[in-house]
């Protein structure tokens, strides 16, 4: 609903916004954000946050760059190593949260800060500067580019392949949530962890798996960044974690867990992408972007709450 309103609003005023090339343009930020937002939504349904998700896209992108360029490895080897690193970080987050019973907010805040320092420190150590460049000169780049950064022509517009991945991941996450036993575990763990344990849900394993899923998504997005931009800055991804949470919340996820959907989070990302590029298409002063975004977040959450109350009232 919100996505339609936002689309109509921008499309009416800007022909370039609604042209196929314009659509390909704003689907691009929506897609990488959407892949993360879907994973973050799963984690939020399971009752947790991951504040390290944004900086982790930077960590994986830098790992890909440093292993490939500085250690002269095939790009696919670098991408594989980055996946191992990401899954290890995700496992660490999940393990600490379930072991120590600390709020995930605190644990992942710690991870966030540590990764931010590592990203900068290690990049400078290996490259003597703050960026890794020249990723396109590494063996394996052509196939990696095809998988992560190619374009597909649809209706005369060159759509980035990330958009297709985003659709695939959203469908996959929806299927897992609604049709599998793991999906039930996620809802149960996020709804009431003690009750879930009492009926035999492996809550600890579910939580760790969700953190690893978020990390895997960060790996995918980080790799996409590294391959597409061919150079990575040490500060990549910082601050994005809140945007992922915003997208998930606009899409109907509750901060308290136990409720939400992957499709909602994907639509939240779509709204974000349209707003981000809709403002320059209308030639508005971009200084107001965050105000607009914040207002939209509040409106979306209020609308979701009213709709849910109405739905609950109708059910009774």
């Amino acid at each position: 609903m919100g996505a339609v309103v936002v689309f109509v609003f921008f499309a009416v005023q800007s022909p370039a916004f609604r042209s196929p090339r314009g659509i390909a343009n704003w689907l691009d930020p929506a897609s990488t954000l959407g892949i993360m937002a879907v994973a973050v939504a799963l984690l939020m349904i399971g009752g947790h946050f991951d504040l390290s998700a944004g900086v982790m896209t930077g960590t994986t992108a830098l790992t890909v760059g440093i292993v490939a360029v500085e250690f002269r490895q095939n790009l696919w080897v670098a991408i594989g190593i980055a996946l191992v690193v990401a899954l290890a970080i995700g496992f660490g987050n999940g393990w600490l949260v379930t072991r120590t019973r600390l709020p995930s907010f605190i644990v992942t805040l710690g991870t966030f800060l540590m990764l931010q320092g590592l990203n900068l420190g290690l990049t400078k150590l290996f490259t003597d500067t703050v960026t890794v460049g020249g990723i396109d000169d590494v063996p394996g780049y052509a196939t990696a580019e095809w998988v992560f950064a190619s374009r597909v022509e649809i209706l005369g517009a060159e759509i980035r392949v990330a958009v297709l991945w985003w659709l695939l991941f959203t469908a996959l996450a929806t299927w897992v949530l609604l049709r599998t036993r793991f999906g039930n575990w996620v809802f149960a763990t996020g709804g009431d962890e003690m009750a879930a344990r009492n009926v035999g849900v492996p809550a600890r394993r579910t939580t760790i798996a969700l953190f690893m899923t978020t990390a895997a998504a960060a790996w995918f997005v980080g790799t996409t960044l590294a391959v597409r931009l061919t150079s990575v800055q040490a500060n990549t991804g910082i601050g994005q974690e809140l945007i992922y949470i915003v997208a998930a919340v606009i899409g109907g996820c509750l901060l308290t867990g136990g409720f939400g959907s992957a499709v909602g989070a994907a639509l939240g990302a779509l709204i974000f992408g349209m707003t981000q590029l809709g403002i320059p298409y209308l030639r508005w002063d971009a200084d107001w972007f965050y105000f607009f975004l914040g207002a939209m977040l509040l409106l979306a959450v209020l609308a979701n709450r009213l709709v849910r109350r109405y739905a609950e009232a109708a059910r009774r």
Partner: protein
Amino acid sequence: MAAPKRLLALALAGPLLLSACTTDSSEDGSGQAGSGGDAGGGDLAVAVVTHGSAGDAFWDVVQNGAVAAGEDLGIEVDYQSDGDPQRQAQLIEAAVNRGVDGLVVSMANPDALQESIEAAVGAGIGVVTINSGGERSTEFGAIGHVGQDERIAGLGAGRRLAEEGATSVLCVIHEPGNVGLEQRCSGADEGFGGSFDTLQVDINDLTGAQSAITSQLQGTTGIDAVLTLNSAVAGVAVEAAADAGSDAQVATFDLNEDVISGIQDGDIAFAVDQQQYTQGYLPVVMLKLYAENLNTVGGGQPVLTGPGIVDADNVDAIADLASAGTR
């Protein structure tokens, strides 16, 4: 039952009201016909897309320069910025889709922008690059570059500090991941030739930056000069030196009113000025010349806007201009 409907009406009415406002203002503004599409008919449209974050005083002056040039020359100028290279590339693509005639791009991260800049050039749009990234400008097909060579500017600052009698310099970097800042520090190191340390602080946390500089000055004996790369950091560096009871002199890159009064009061030795107003103004002129007369400026070399040095000798003349937002 009634509440969701009312809210829906509100959600729809809000944007519509906003849009009503904007149509009004654009009509009595530059008189643009419709939004987007072709901006032909003699009126040029130029988009400026930089990597400055919103609210950064330095980029505000660049924006002022570009807007002033637009007004002086009767060109429609639109300014957008995003510090994230991928989002900057997306903004460039949006400008190309909107059908602008000219594009001004700052290139903090040339690799990341290569594809979108080449796409703009391929679409027949004149591109001028500004600020950093001059060495890749021609390769991407830009008609010119306006900026400061960061290494040369750093070199100048380092030499000047040596002339001022400094023996040990602390170079304060305020943005992790900014290549230009690293180049300034390494250029200054080269030009200075003495004991040289760098310190990493966060521009979004100036009080934290101040205490970091204070503790560095207390912890490392012998530092007699602090070189900051941003005018806001220069202000806190002066306070930090006072807190630490250090006699270290402060020098900085870039101006603001605090830096100017600091130079007038003798708290700041000098500022390296890259005259970023010209980085906004000149490209618009260059794009007009190119569009109407196929002129190019610079002969394939970057047009340098700095380093100019502002010190006690010339600060008074510049003070008023800085408060007007053009220096």
